[in-house]
């Protein structure tokens, strides 16, 4: 089976947001703040406006008012662009030049003269802010007596871990083409949530929701960065309103590093204590993340620590520090990904302290129930994942002595870590139409962010109707379709698949009603005696079959419809849902060359039933490679003096390239979740990433004896 979007994408026929060209389209380019804190005093646009082809200049001192979105609606940055003349971070968009061509718009933006008043008080130094205690506590919970139990522990770990600012680095930039049809706004956008994007734009411009249409047929990578509304879509729409023409606006690559969200920097203190047998007796996880001046974004690192392992005495807390940086946003596996870096590294340290194999230590602490929610697991195959990953990897051959495994000039290290992701469901409405042409059409306002949503949806309808895969049209990526979920939190499959099943069954049932009705091809038959096989209706006892078209023709109808609705039910109160897994990693360190590489990763993951092994595996392979980047390469560096990003392009912010990809051995258990919904699918987007970095960090320790607690792990950390 080919991907629905495969041919379109490899031939370039798939049009992404800013590929769209409208009649009379104009182009916009932004000017960003060079300072991190202060006020915009003046904008001199004389030279810009003198350029032939420049249509207008919008800026914070002279812009129509845009509205904020209510707190109940998630957006990227609560403050709309140009709200006032305050500057909260370097890279903040202060002006927009609209012109006949992109080149003229960019030249015009470069010619703008912005005059600032820079504040003397600037918060750019996370470490200093932490030292000075500028932490706002946002969340805390506990069970048992963690502090007392820690003191009584046989083995104890008290260590602090850090993760840097991470950038989503989607290939496709944040950008949009927007135009107005009378009072109605239409946006060709790149978003992980067409429904949310249209609601947010409606609020921003003060329009009824029905007057905003957001389209996003293809998304060139999101990773969380396109979950919520960011300024490019707003500014394209605003510029279009001002010039009365369609406007294309996209951030440039540098803008992605300041103005479209990032995974925030975190510092996490872990205190673990275990008894002589390696059972956890106390776990404390205190995390702080950096957030912006304008939004309080929490990276909920410690949540996973409260339930992944069994432990009677647990205390977790979360805080934020406000800095002059842009607003953070979820990035693949938000919370869990940095959280497990800390927890799974600390567990490795505890295993060393206890002289217990790190695999064995995890097996001894597998959680029998979710102690944080005080609920039984829907299903928990954590232990099986750990055992199978270790077996496939060859863990039993591991010599626990540090630096003991060598090959030529390389020293080899093996590490293990658990992975986990809370399995969530949301709501969806789906319609399935069976058409006179003999085809089927499925409609839902969700979107395919490159992960195979088109394909999985068509596959579901194919399985239930027997229609050929190519006869099934999937209509998604438009906010006007029946309301579907956000492509985030690994929810789409788990949420929509049950609704598709229901809609398809109802459509077939409606077709059966027509078939047995007067004048129908099976008039007088009992509905129950008929079934759909190979896209046609036939009697269970054999005989002639009738196509969808023939049945509809009998009533002169063009199509028949079924509607399915699914939302989380009472099962959420009875069970806790989580996906579990285990990663084993092999690293090779050549001290003479300063070369650290990940050569091998084995992952075994349980995320319920796998609907499509190809698209599911594809997501996990990508996640593992992303984990390699997180462990060894990725860091958005800011200049401490100015707050400007220094590594603001894809040559200096390093993501893995093909030659960095380890050999990956992946096993998806494919055991249906008994309680999550009709088909037992839980989603796979994040669980492949969480836990990869600590598996690599633990392998680095095994190779070198160096415990690196701050990511990314770099050659200079291991030298000398």
């Amino acid at each position, binding site marked *: 089976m080919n991907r629905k979007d495969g041919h379109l994408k490899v031939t370039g026929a798939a049009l992404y947001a800013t590929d769209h060209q409208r009649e009379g389209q104009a182009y916009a380019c932004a000017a960003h703040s060079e300072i991190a804190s202060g006020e915009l005093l003046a904008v001199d646009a004389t030279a810009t406006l003198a350029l032939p082809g420049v249509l207008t200049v919008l800026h914070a001192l002279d812009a129509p008012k845009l509205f904020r979105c209510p707190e109940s609606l998630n957006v990227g940055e609560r403050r709309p662009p140009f709200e006032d003349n305050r500057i909260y971070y370097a890279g903040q968009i202060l002006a927009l030049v609209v012109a006949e061509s992109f080149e003229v718009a960019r030249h015009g933006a470069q010619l703008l003269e912005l005059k600032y008043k820079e504040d003397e008080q600037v918060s750019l130094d996370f470490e200093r802010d932490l030292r000075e205690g500028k932490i706002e506590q946002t969340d805390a919970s506990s069970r048992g007596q963690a502090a007392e139990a820690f003191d009584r522990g046989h083995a104890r770990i008290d260590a602090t871990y850090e993760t840097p600012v991470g950038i989503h680095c989607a290939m496709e930039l944040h950008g949009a083409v927007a135009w107005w049809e009378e009072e109605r706004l239409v946006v060709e956008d790149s978003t992980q949530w067409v429904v949310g994007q249209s609601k947010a734009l409606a609020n921003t411009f003060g329009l009824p929701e029905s007057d905003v249409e957001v389209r996003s047929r293809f998304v060139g990578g999101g990773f969380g960065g396109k979950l919520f509304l960011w300024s490019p879509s707003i500014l394209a729409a605003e510029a279009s309103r001002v010039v009365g023409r369609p406007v294309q606006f996209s951030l440039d690559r540098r803008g992605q590093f300041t103005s479209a969200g990032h995974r925030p920097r975190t510092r996490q203190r872990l205190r673990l204590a275990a008894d002589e047998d390696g059972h956890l007796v106390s776990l404390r996880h205190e995390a702080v993340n950096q957030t912006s001046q304008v939004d309080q974004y929490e990276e909920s690192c410690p949540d996973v620590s409260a339930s992944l392992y069994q432990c009677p005495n647990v205390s977790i807390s979360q805080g934020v520090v406000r800095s002059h940086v842009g607003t953070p946003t979820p990035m693949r596996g938000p919370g869990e990904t940095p959280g497990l870096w800390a927890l799974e590294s600390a567990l490795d340290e505890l295993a060393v302290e206890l002289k217990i194999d790190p695999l064995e230590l995890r097996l001894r602490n597998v959680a029998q129930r979710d102690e944080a929610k005080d609920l039984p697991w829907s299903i928990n195959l954590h232990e099986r994942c750990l055992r199978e990953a270790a077996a496939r990897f060859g863990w039993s051959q591991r010599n626990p002595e540090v630096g003991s495994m060598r090959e030529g000039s390389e020293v080899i290290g093996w590490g293990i870590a658990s992975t986990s992701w809370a399995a969530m469901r949301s709501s969806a409405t789906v319609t399935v139409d069976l058409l006179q042409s003999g085809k089927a059409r499925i409609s839902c306002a969700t979107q395919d962010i490159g992960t195979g949503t088109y394909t999985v949806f068509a596959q579901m309808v194919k399985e239930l109707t027997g229609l050929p895969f190519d006869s099934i049209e999937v209509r998604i990526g438009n906010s006007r379709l029946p309301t579907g979920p956000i492509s985030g939190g690994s929810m789409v499959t788990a949420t929509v698949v049950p609704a598709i099943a229901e809609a398809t069954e109802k459509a077939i049932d409606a077709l059966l009603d027509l078939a047995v009705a007067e004048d129908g091809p099976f008039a007088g038959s009992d509905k129950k005696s008929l079934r759909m096989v190979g896209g046609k209706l036939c009697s269970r006892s054999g005989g002639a079959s009738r196509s969808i078209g023939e049945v509809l023709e009998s009533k002169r109808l063009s199509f028949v419809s079924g509607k399915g609705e699914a939302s989380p039910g009472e099962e959420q109160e009875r069970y806790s849902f989580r996906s579990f897994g285990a990663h084993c990693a092999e690293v090779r360190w050549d001290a*003479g060359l300063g070369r650290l590489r990940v050569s091998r990763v084995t992952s075994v993951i349980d995320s319920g039933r796998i609907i499509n092994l190809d698209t599911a595996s594809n997501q996990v392979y990508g996640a593992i490679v992303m984990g390699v980047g997180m462990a060894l390469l990725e860091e958005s560096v800011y200049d401490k003096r100015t707050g400007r990003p220094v*590594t603001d392009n894809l040559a200096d912010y390093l993501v893995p*390239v093909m*030659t960095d990809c380890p050999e990956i051995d992946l096993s998806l258990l494919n055991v249906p979740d008994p309680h999550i919904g009709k088909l037992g699918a839980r989603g796979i987007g994040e669980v492949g990433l969480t836990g990869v970095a600590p598996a690599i960090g633990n392998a680095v320790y095994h190779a070198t004896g160096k415990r690196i607690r701050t990511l990314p792990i770099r050659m200079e950390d291991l030298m*000398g």
Partner: protein
Amino acid sequence: MKPFHYERASTVEEACSMSTESEESCFLAGGTTLIDLLKLNVMRPAKVVDVRNVDMDTVDLLEDGGILIGANVRNSDLAWHQKVRRDYQALSEALLSGASPQLRNMATVAGNVMQRARCPYFRDNYSPCNKRSPGSGCAALGGYARSHAVLGTSEHCIATHPSDMCVALAAFEAKVRVEGLAGTRDIPFSDFHLLPGDRPDREHAIDPGELITGVVLPPNVEGASSVYLKSRDRASYEFALASAAVSFALVEGRIAAARIALGGVATKPWRAFEAENCLEGNEPSSELYEEAAALAMEGAITQPDNAYKVPLARGLIVRALAIARERVEAQV
């Protein structure tokens, strides 16, 4: 990007005279540096003279056994040239370690010789930078300087010369052939790139209106073998954090014609002359390699972020010398 006049030359003379007509002109070849810097508004020439149609894209064998590499020869073509692969292995390895296949298919030899700094403060177009805006200061000093130079720096600039190819050319004692309206001259490679000193904006010993037409490589020393080693965080598509090109021959068991050049650690392609002298005439041994490596990095001035480059480069030199020896011995 500031609009500029674009002209296309078909001969060297035409290129030189087009270029002298405007004070702020520059030549366009592969464009892999220039186009980037134009878009970032860091370079703002009034005129761009396209020299891609000028006939200088062959590798010619010279009578003395050396080669003349045409200025427009693509990096990938040069890397896979038979003679280069055989006699100048470090050059081939250096080229193939640089950039990506797509960039190597575009980038030319002369363009690579003229490659500009990758310092983020040079490219951001607003930080103080003496290279971009003389007299404005150096933001890399006291800033994020993990990739910056430790050799050949000044208090005005610590930007690393980013080229891999140039490191090998330095080791092979290449000459840069430039032609202008006043005639042709060959500039020894170690004189071509200038140290930043108090004028980091002046990067080359080339005069306005002069065009690089080729690079001359002298014949390789009989029996010599060479190697290029590069260290970086990711396995491909990253500038060197440190690199070493070494070459030597063995005469009666002793090192002859030793050459060591370094990349990623210096403000220009860096010849380690003292380290070469230390090797010359001695029997190869790990101790000797260590001694040479230490000499090569003597006098390094480090920043808080880049002190690791000193042990890193030493390690690379030692490893490169060991590999070169294996290759020399494998020849016999």
